[in-house]
Every structure is written in structure tokens, then in C-alpha cells.
């Protein structure tokens, strides 16, 4: 097994430097590559100094929300009165996203090192790495790596446990993840209280994404200024981003680029462009939860947090889903809605009923039984589902529906008016 592609010259290899290198997976191999040195140094540092360094680097959460990591850490109580927890979100379930999996597969020690540094920075006693249940290979590798690192005693007093998810997408939401670790049903919690005040087991907790933490040792090693310098566009977005490209491109896969890299270049240069004879139709740039971009928007998008927002979408988790002109977007949107309906935790009314209803309407349209009024009903439902629930799962379901109807209304209408043949049975 090797990493699928040889790096493209325009990639910036920071996190993916050792991808494909099986020797880097072992403790010895990682130490040979300079691993765990930063942890040793960090353990000797004041927690506040680490937080300052990370703040200065401009590192932002790579799970999707893009919240500044150093700032998040600084929310933890300075004076420790209760146990602190760190949760590492390795429940990577967002459709179209597969970057954390690769980090765990190839550089498990890099993640463990970043985790331990973060744990020290927020004075956490115990750390849970919550790994998606379906990631069996990543789990095995992480388990082996953790055993090796523990045997080498590199973590000092910090305890790291792996926790295996059981297949629920919603457990990737930070508060649902905490419930899941506590042994409860994975329902998101109402905020406030925020995790830094009362999180796992009611104690101050920080939750970070795998990619975020994997970057932390490198920031300490090369300095905040170096990381801040990795920026092609907006200075608020720094560092590199692993982008998981899937769909109708010649060479799908994980590509690591500097923040602000043009989406157009990613698609046409790094990924080898569309399949022969096909043209680009739409892109979902940040995992399934963000609004869809049409061709014009996609080709002018710069891939960083601000660049995506400018085009009315989000960088999200960096799962780039590409559709060429052969794609049936109504069907694709129905598939997304069905996913969210299936994964809704069923707490909030809007989400539980709204995702299911949206799916049923889309299915009806695809079965040739739609009405024009259904499009209004869908938009009405989407409005109902946006910004009103405990977590953003229901917003995520609404986003592709709204942008889809707005940008590709003719495709919906084709099904409704009978200009397209039904593709599913009623």
C-alpha cells in the first residue's frame, strides 16, 4: 500500500509530508524523523506560552467551523479547579471528507504528539481520541501507535485513550461526542454552557479536530511566523489545508495546499481536470453540509475561510465534491437530504421532521410526482430548519437544498413538468 499519488509540485507538504511512508508510522521511525522532540520541549513550557504561540500562528479549527484554536484553548480555566479534558474529534463522517483518516493512517504519532501538546496546553488530565467506528484500519494503526508511545513513556502524566464511535454521524458534533463518550445517546447538548465551562462529565473540555492538532507540533517546531506565512490570500486564513477531492475529476484524492489556493487550479491542475469530454457543473467545496457552487462561482473561488464565504459557501472540512455535466443534481441533493434524515438525532422538531419531510418531497419529485408548490414547500421547510436548532445538522440539510433550487431550479422543474423521466420508483 502506498499513498495514491506522488505529490504535485504546487502542493505544500506539511501534514502530508510522510504520507505513504510506512516507516513513519512506527515510533522509531517517527522519532528518527524528529518526532516527539516538540512534545518534550512543550512539556517543559508554560501552558500559556504554547497557547500564545498557537494564537500567533493563526491556526484555525479544521473540523469545519474554523474557530481560532489558540483562542479556544484560552477559554479553558487558567486556574485548574476541576479535571480538564481534551477530546480529539476523529469521527470524520462528513460525506466527501477523508483527510483525518489519512493523517491517522500515515502519521499517527504526529496526531498523538499534537494531542499531547494540546493536553498540556489546556492542562487536561485525560484525553479521548474519538475515532469513527468504520475506520478499522486507522483504529488499528492508532492503537498500535498509542501502545508504542505509551511504552516509550513520552506523554508524561497525560493519559490518552482511544474511543471508538458506533457509526453515528452526529457524534462528530462536539457536544454529541461528549455525550457519546459519557455513554449516553449521542444527542448534541444545548449551548451554553460551552464545553470549556462544562463539557465532558460536566468538566472544562476542549474539542479539537485531528488535522488541527496534527499541525500543532509543526507550528512549535517552525514557529508561529512560519505558519502565518503560509497564506496566499486573506491573512486571517493561515497554514495549509488538506483537501479531499472526490467526484468527477481525473485524479481524486487528498491534496495539501496553502490557504488561499484557487479552487480552479486545484481542479484543473492538481486533479487533472474533468473526465474527457465533460465540463464542470457544480462543486460542493467543504463537505456535504455547505451550499453548492455553480461553475462560475467555483472557478473564481479561493480556498480559504474568507474566500468561500465570499462566494456564499464555506470551506468546512475541505471535502471538495465535484460534479460534471453528467450529474443529476436533484438526485444528488436527495441523496444528501436522505443522509441527513438518516443521521438526525431526532431531538429538535425542525430537524427530525424537516429532514425526513425534505427527503420525502425530493423523492417524490424524482419519482415524477412533484408539484411546483413543492419547491416553495422545500424552501419554506429549509427556512424553518435554518438557525433554529440545537446543532447545525438541520442547517446542513437545508443548505444544499436551498442553493440547489436557487442555482439549478430548471433541473427540479424538469422532473415536475415531466420533461425528465422519473429516476426512482414512487
Amino acid at each position, binding site marked *: 500500500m502506498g499513498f495514491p499519488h506522488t505529490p504535485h509540485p504546487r502542493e505544500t507538504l506539511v501534514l502530508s509530508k510522510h504520507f505513504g511512508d510506512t516507516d513513519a508510522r512506527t515510533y522509531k521511525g517517527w522519532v528518527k524523523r524528529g518526532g516527539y522532540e516538540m512534545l518534550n520541549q512543550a512539556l517543559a513550557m508554560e501552558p500559556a506560552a504554547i497557547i500564545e504561540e498557537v494564537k500567533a500562528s493563526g491556526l484555525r479549527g479544521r473540523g469545519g467551523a474554523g474557530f481560532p484554536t489558540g483562542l479556544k484553548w484560552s477559554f479553558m480555566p487558567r486556574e485548574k479547579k476541576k479535571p480538564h479534558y481534551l477530546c480529539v474529534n476523529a469521527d470524520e463522517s462528513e460525506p466527501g471528507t477523508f483527510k483525518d483518516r489519512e493523517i491517522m493512517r500515515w502519521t499517527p504519532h504526529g496526531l498523538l504528539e499534537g494531542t499531547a501538546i494540546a493536553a498540556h496546553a489546556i492542562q487536561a488530565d485525560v484525553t479521548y481520541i474519538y475515532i469513527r467506528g468504520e475506520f478499522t484500519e486507522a483504529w488499528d494503526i492508532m492503537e498500535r501507535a498509542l501502545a508504542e508511545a505509551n511504552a516509550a513513556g513520552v506523554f508524561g502524566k497525560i493519559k490518552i485513550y482511544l474511543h471508538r464511535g458506533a457509526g453515528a454521524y452526529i457524534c462528530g458534533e462536539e457536544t454529541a461526542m461528549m455525550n457519546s463518550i459519557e455513554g449516553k*445517546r449521542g444527542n448534541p447538548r444545548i449551548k451554553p454552557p460551552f464545553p470549556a465551562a462544562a463539557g465532558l462529565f460536566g468538566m472544562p473540555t476542549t474539542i479539537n479536530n485531528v488535522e488541527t492538532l496534527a499541525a500543532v507540533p509543526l507550528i512549535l517546531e517552525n514557529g508561529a511566523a512560519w505558519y502565518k506565512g503560509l497564506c496566499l490570500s486573506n491573512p486571517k486564513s493561515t497554514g495549509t489545508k488538506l483537501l479531499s477531492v472526490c467526484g468527477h475529476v481525473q485524479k481524486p484524492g487528498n491534496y495539501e495546499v496553502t490557504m488561499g489556493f484557487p479552487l480552479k487550479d486545484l481542479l484543473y491542475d492538481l486533479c487533472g481536470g474533468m473526465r474527457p469530454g465533460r465540463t464542470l457543473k457544480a462543486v460542493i467545496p467543504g463537505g456535504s453540509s455547505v451550499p453548492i457552487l455553480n461553475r462560475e462561482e467555483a472557478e473564481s473561488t479561493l480556498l480559504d475561510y474568507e474566500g468561500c464565504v465570499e462566494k456564499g459557501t464555506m470551506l468546512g472540512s475541505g471535502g471538495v465534491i465535484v460534479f460534471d455535466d453528467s450529474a443529476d443534481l436533484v438526485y444528488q441533493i436527495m441523496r444528501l437530504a436522505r443522509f441527513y434524515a438518516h443521521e*438526525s438525532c431526532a431531538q429538535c*422538531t*425542525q430537524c427530525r421532521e424537516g429532514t425526513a*419531510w425534505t427527503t420525502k418531497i425530493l423523492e417524490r419529485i424524482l419519482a415524477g410526482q412533484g408539484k411546483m408548490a413543492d419547491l416553495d414547500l422545500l424552501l419554506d421547510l429549509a427556512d424553518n430548519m435554518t*438557525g433554529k436548532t440545537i446543532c447545525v445538522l438541520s442547517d446542513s440539510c437545508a443548505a444544499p437544498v436551498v442553493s440547489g433550487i436557487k442555482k439549478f431550479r430548471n433541473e427540479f422543474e424538469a422532473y415536475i413538468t415531466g420533461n425528465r423521466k422519473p429516476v426512482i420508483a414512487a
Partner: protein
Amino acid sequence: MPSLTIDGRALTAGTDQTILEAARAAGLGIPTLCWYPKLPIVGNCRICLVSVAGEPKLLPACATKVTDGMQVTTESHAAVQNRRGVLSLLLERYPADHLRNGGRAEPRNEFERYVMQYGVVPTPTWGRDLPLRTGDERPGDPMIRHDMTTCILCTRCVRACEDIQVVGVLDVGFRGEHAEIVVGADGDPEKAGCTWCGECVRVCPTGAIFEVMPKERFSPQQIRHPERVVRSVCPYCGVGCQVDLHVANNTVARVTSPDIEADTPNQGSTCVKGRFGYDFPQHRDRLTTPLIRRGWEKEGGCWAWKGRRGAERRGGPWKSIEGEGQQTKPGTPPRVTGKKVRQLPLLERIDMDIRDRVATPSSWYEPFREATWDEALELVAQELLRIKQQRGGDALACFSSAKCSNEENYLMMRMFRGALGTNNVDHCTRLCHSTSVAAMQRAINTAAASGSMREIEEACDVIFIAGANTTESHPVFGALIKRAHEKGATLIVADPRRTELAGRADIHLQMQPGTDVALYSAMLHHILTQGLENKEFITTRTHGFEGVREAVRAYDPDRAAKITGVPADTIRRAAELYATGPNTSTLWAMGLTQHAMGTDIVTSLLNLMFACGMIGRWGAAMLPIRGQNNVQGASDVGAIPFVYTDYQPVTDPEVRERFAKTWGVSPESLSLNKGLMVTEVVKPESGIRGMYIMGENPIISDPDIAHAEHWFLQLEFLAVQDLFLTETARYADVVLPGASFAEKTGTFVNTERRIQLAKKAVDSPGQVRGDLEILIDLSNRLGLNAPFKTADDVMREIVRVTPSWAGVTHARLEGAGLQYPVPTPDHPGTRFLFADAFPTADGKATFVPVQYTDPVELPDDAYPFVMNTGRQLYHWHTGTMTRRATGLDAREPTPIVEIHPADAARLGVAEGDLVRLTSRRNSMVTAVRVSDRVARGQVFVPFHFREAAANLLTNPILDPYAKMAELKICAVRIEPVRMPAAV
């Protein structure tokens, strides 16, 4: 104190209040579905979202804390749009076609009211994309069923079950659109540990979870619009839950509990008995006219006995309890839970059979004829006066009733003392907490709990429960203890059985029955060796400690471990937790008291408590948990043989003077001798020839029934006042039909000294008279002026002679009631006692050294098992009420004996098999329930069942101080009984 504006109104809210709380406090309504007072806030229905100035999104009012300067708009356009959205989404899966009729429909529940309020019209059910909701349904359940199509998944029921009752039967199963309320893991509430408390029914906003019984008997209109709703007090245990009786058609249609935020002892909860055990007054067995035994005839203005004489004088065409005990019975059918019922084709037949045996057999009525009130009361008065004249007042005795109100008990003891000149007045406290009272009187001259129930939840750190199966016998209090435990209090349970609380306790001291003194002495021994005793408390608040120090010296934990069977280290750990509290509350009930050395056992526990100073603070309470709903009150108003009201001794001439004056009789007519107690009365040497029994059933509840039954046959005259022709009443000369709890007004005192008012809800059936009325009439006929009309009148006299109740009036008892002492009309009542001093002469408590002695009857080769008796969740005492309550009886229809699985295997018996239990006194046949709640070598027999009365076997030996019988321990032998060919 943040100030904010809600809908333009400037308000000042408490810090830490939510927007919803602030709005409610100001009388502003915000619609809520998932929110319910006191339940954890989950904020999942999203209907309470409101607009807050400066916030980009709508915020949930139920979960958002107020901040200074906040500007809230509850009915902004966005908020209203969202509410309409939520309601229409919920309606899409809700059967609401009736709401489509242009606004003429009547909303049937909380949810539909919002639908109407926001003008949301549901789509017709036939045109919908989504199916109606489903969920676990509890088919065939006798009390609670579900119609999950109307569920809106607010999860109130889940949280009520988990966080109020701490049972956790209900949960949300599955995800997304398939989410539904599930019952346990497989839909069987029995397996999931359901207690049928009905908390889920109470909180459900749509009626998806509903009570079966009202729906079967009343129309929806009658249920939705009861004629009146009357506040009463639950007629079962000593927790004294307030309940609301809904009246339709002059019957109690259903029972609900008061507002969860109301200041009631139950804080809005009830248990299965309170919520579903209300239909016994309407049972067909109810007596509606007075009965006189055939043979009594009136001749020349005087009643004379013309019937048979001798042993058969009082008999009848029935089997004695002893005889019924010998009969074989159908084995236990599975308890009715739902799914099992369907799998049991024969159940109906078995059930019929059971019902015939439970109800009063028609043959029992044969020796009686119906009579008028005048005839009946005339006969009673004549015979009581005749016996008094011929044999003296002390040949008469009465059993008053812990089920009757304070007023009735007061009139009863007033009548016997004032008109008949005897102090032979007692009630079932004798078989309940008499030993506690004896021990507490000896130590601190008090006879009631020192604290309140809710302090266990509010302020207690360590809960020590001895011999109390609280979750079954006092379920609402049990739930409170579980809540306290969930919140972090340490729970220590001393009990030979592994009860529910013992199962969840931090420490379970599972001792051999009757070895309590050794256990508590060993705990004190360890506390003293560790120096953990409260030295200041001992020196300033008590005397006589050195005697106890001496007495416990012999009980080091290692020796106690040999006696009690509890590992020495466990005893040590429990002792340390108990002593270091900081606030330890001590609770106990029948497991301690119903022993022949009950007074010593309670004393040893009190010694432990005083040595650690765990009394007289909020959080450190002494709580003997009272059994009956008015056992405390009946004692308080003097229905016990040696005191008048407020425990004023009958032997004190000054006290006698005062009462004689109040009652308008000569002081000499009142006896200065202490009277006989319940257990002393039912003995050949008592010399009692005539009896009046109000609402008690001693033939089932007294030890060694065969002897008791024989004793009652020998009486010259017996009058019984009861709702039904009970096992005792069938031996009576006159049976007077009394009124049930719903048919009268009166006051009751619960286990925390709280005097509460229960009001009349319905009229009595037939010629039934209120007990108060009967007693007033009879008093007057006996020549004692009883110038009362109502319970209020009687209370006014009671408070004149009861110093600690001096400030009580019926008007003041409205609402939460008052915890006595209430010395003045403006006194707010007393939540806990003994903060500074005890009510003894010098204000100090007395330590009384006690020594452990083996229980009188230990198992041996001939009788190898120790039999313990007690109560079940679904039944009450002698079953007079609960076995006639449809829902309750369906859950526990037959008598059982709990046997440990290992013992059952050794005996070769399985669940439902019949066994014969034989003690040194008698034997009876009952069915096996295999359960590891009992320890090996022990069996547990509930005493509710006439057809297998536990008290046939029990030992009538008495406690030397309190005359309590050894009800908890007797040695028995168990043999399998072969059933006759298939039922």
C-alpha cells in the same frame, strides 16, 4: 439582579434565571412543549424561541439565561413564524383531522391548544408525505397505555421517568424520523423495572401516554371537564401525598397530582397506588346499609339476642383464615404487563377464579340482615353501655384507625374515654412504630420525626436507611431518596433483603434478620475507637453516654461480623461515612420496629445518632417513616391507651381535669389507668368483652391469626365500622358502613408532622354516613355531649386541648398544610426540630445502653428458613382497599413467597409452584416467586392476602415496652405442594 425588557415590559429577574422563568414570573406566557418545571432542560422542541435584540438567531427562552439590558420580544415575526413552523412540522405526523374544521374543534390537550392559538391548520392525513408516529404501546396494560400516534417526542416522559422517579423505563429509541418512545429494551415495562407510577401520564402534553381506567369508564367529555376537582390526601402511606380528585357522575373519575411546583410533600408526584388505586370506593362489595347479625331482635324497647348460643353464635358459612390458608390455589399467573397477557390464553379464567376469591363471597353476608341507622346505633349504644354497667368500662376496647382523620380519631377516643370511662383506645400504630415511639420517648420525649422529607434531597450528605423498603412502601419518598443519591448523597442501607435502594446503595449492610443491635453497636464501637464521635454534642446535649460507651465495648466490628454476617470492614466503612457526614439523616421503618426487641433496636440506632450528633440540623434528620396516612395524627390526637392529645399522660390528674372540663364530664368518670394496647387486647387474659373497631382488620394484621380469630369469636359484642365486610367485620354483631377518603373532609398528619386537609369530593353511596357523623351520633347516644356538625368544629376543640396544634385551623391548612408544632395562629409551622434543645425536662437527650440478644425464634433443622413479612408495591396492608382496586390487583393478583434461587433449586420448586409454609404455629399454601432480593435461607411473605395470610405463621411474642409483636422473624419449613390436575 439583571434588569431586562420582555415585550416592552421592564423587569428585574433573578440572576441565573432563564428568559422563560423571568417571563413566567412576570405573568407572560411563552409556549413550551419540551420544557416542564423541574425537569432537566433539553430545549429540543424549539417552540419557545424568542427574539433577543442584537442576537442574529432566535434563542430558546427555556435555556437562555437573562443578562442585564437584554431586550426580548416573545412574539416577534420571526418567533411566531418559527412556532408555526414547529407546530406544522409536528402536526404533519399527528392525527388531527378534527382540527381542520374551521376553528370549531375543541383542543384536546396542551399541544392542540397551541395549534389553535397560532392558527396552524394540519394537512389532511391522506395527503401526507410522512406516516403517523409510532412507538411502544403497552397493549393490555391495566393502568397505563400509549397511543403513540399523538406523540410529539417532547421527551418529557423520558425525563420524568429518569429524573423525577429515577426509574428510567422510557427512552427515545432509533434516530431521525424513526425516533420513537420505547419502553425498556423490548417493550416490556415489567422487565424494564416500571413501577407504574404514572409520572409519564402526568407530564405528557398530548395524552399519548394515558390512563386506561378513566377512559374505560367515562366519556372524553367527562374526563376533560370534570364536575369538580377536589384536593385530597392520598389514602395510602405516610408520605401524605396531596392528590386532586376529578369528579364525574359523583364518582372519582381520575386522580391527578398537584402542580409540580406546588409546595406539597409529594412535590407533585404520586406512586401507582395514589394515582391508580382510587376505584375501591366504587367496588361492588361496598357496604351501603348498616348490617345487624340475625338473632338480634328488639323486644319491649330493648335489643336482645335470640339466636344460637355457644361457639357458633358468631360463626358463619365461611372458611376461617386458617382454613383458606390450607387451600391450594392456582399458581401465580404472570403479572399483567401487556405483552405477556396476550400470550396467556387461560388468563381470563385464572383471573375470574382469583377475583371470586378476592371479593367478599356472598355467603359472608348470610348471617346479617340490613338495618336502619337508628336500629344499628341503638343496638351498639345499648350493648356498650350494658357491658360497661355489668363489667366496668375496662371490659370494653376500641381500635381506632390510622386510615381515619384526626377529627374522627379524636372523637373516637373522646367517646371511649368520656362516655365509657376506659383508656382501652389504640390503633395500628402498635404494629407499626410503637417501638420507635417507646424508644424516642425514653430518649428525648418525642414521638415524631425531627425533620422533613425534602431536606434529604436538599441538604443531606449521607442517607442511612435501616429496615425500610422505601421505594415500595413509600414510593414517592423512595424516589426522592433516589434523586438525592443521584445528586451525590451517599446511601447506606441496612436491610436483610436486597431491596431496590439496597441494590443501588453505596453500602448495603445485609445483616441476618434481627441482629440490628449488634450492627449499630459495632458501628458506634468503631466510631469511638476512631474518635469520630461528636464530643461537643455528647457533652452539651446529652447525658448517660458513658453507659453506652461501656455497652458497645463488647461489639467490635469483628465480633459483630460473626453475629450479623456483614463483613467487618463494611461495618467500619459505613460507620466512618455515617459519622463524618457532615449531615447524616437516619431513616427507619418496620424492619427495625416489628421485632420483639424493637425498642432496643431503635434505641441502639438512636444511640448511634446522638453519639454522632446527627439530629437538629437541616439535613441531619431523624425520620421514622410512618406507615399509614394518618398513623402519626391518630397518635397525636390521643388514640393510644396511655395519652390524651399531644401525648399528655392519662395518669396525670391535672390533665384529666382539663379534658373532663372540655368534654363536660366529671373528672372522676375519666380513668387514670393506662389502657390496653392492640396486641394485649387480643388475648384471653385481657378481660375485654365488647369491642368497637373502626377501619381496622386485625384478623389479617395481627400475629398468629388462628388464635386472634378464635378470640374474636368469644366476644360478647363486636361493632365494626368499615367500607367492606372485612374478614374481621364478618364476626361482628353490627356493621356500620363508613365513608371512604373521597367522601369526607378531615385532616391527616404525614410522616413529617405535616397536618393536611383532605376535602370531600363525592357523596357516599346508599345510606353510608361519614365516620364523623356516626361517631357524633353514637357519642350523643352514649350520653356524651358532642356538639359538632363538621370536621372544622371538631378541630376547634382539638386545638384547644393540644398545645402544639394551637395555631391550626382548617383555613390555614389549605395548600401545603402545616408542620406542627404550630403554637400560635401566625406560626408558620416547624420544618425541623431540636436545633437547640430536646423536649425533655433538662433539654438533653438520654443515652440508654442496650445489649444484643438473639431473636426469639431462630431457624433450626425442623424450621430451617427465616420468614420475613412486609409490603408490596401494589398492595396495601390487609388488601381491603388495594385488592378491590382494579389496576393494582391486576398487577399482584395472588399471594406469593419470595425464595432465593438457590433455595428454590434445592427445594425443587420453580416460579409459580405451590409450597406449604409451616411455622411452629400454623401453616399455609402459597406460590413461589424466585427472587434474589432475599438472602439464602430467608423468605419473604407479603401480608396482604387473606387466602395465604402471612400472619397465620408469625410469632405473637411481644416487645416488653411497646407490646410490638415479632412480625419480622419467624422460623418456617417449606414443602412443595402438588397441584391438583390442570386448572
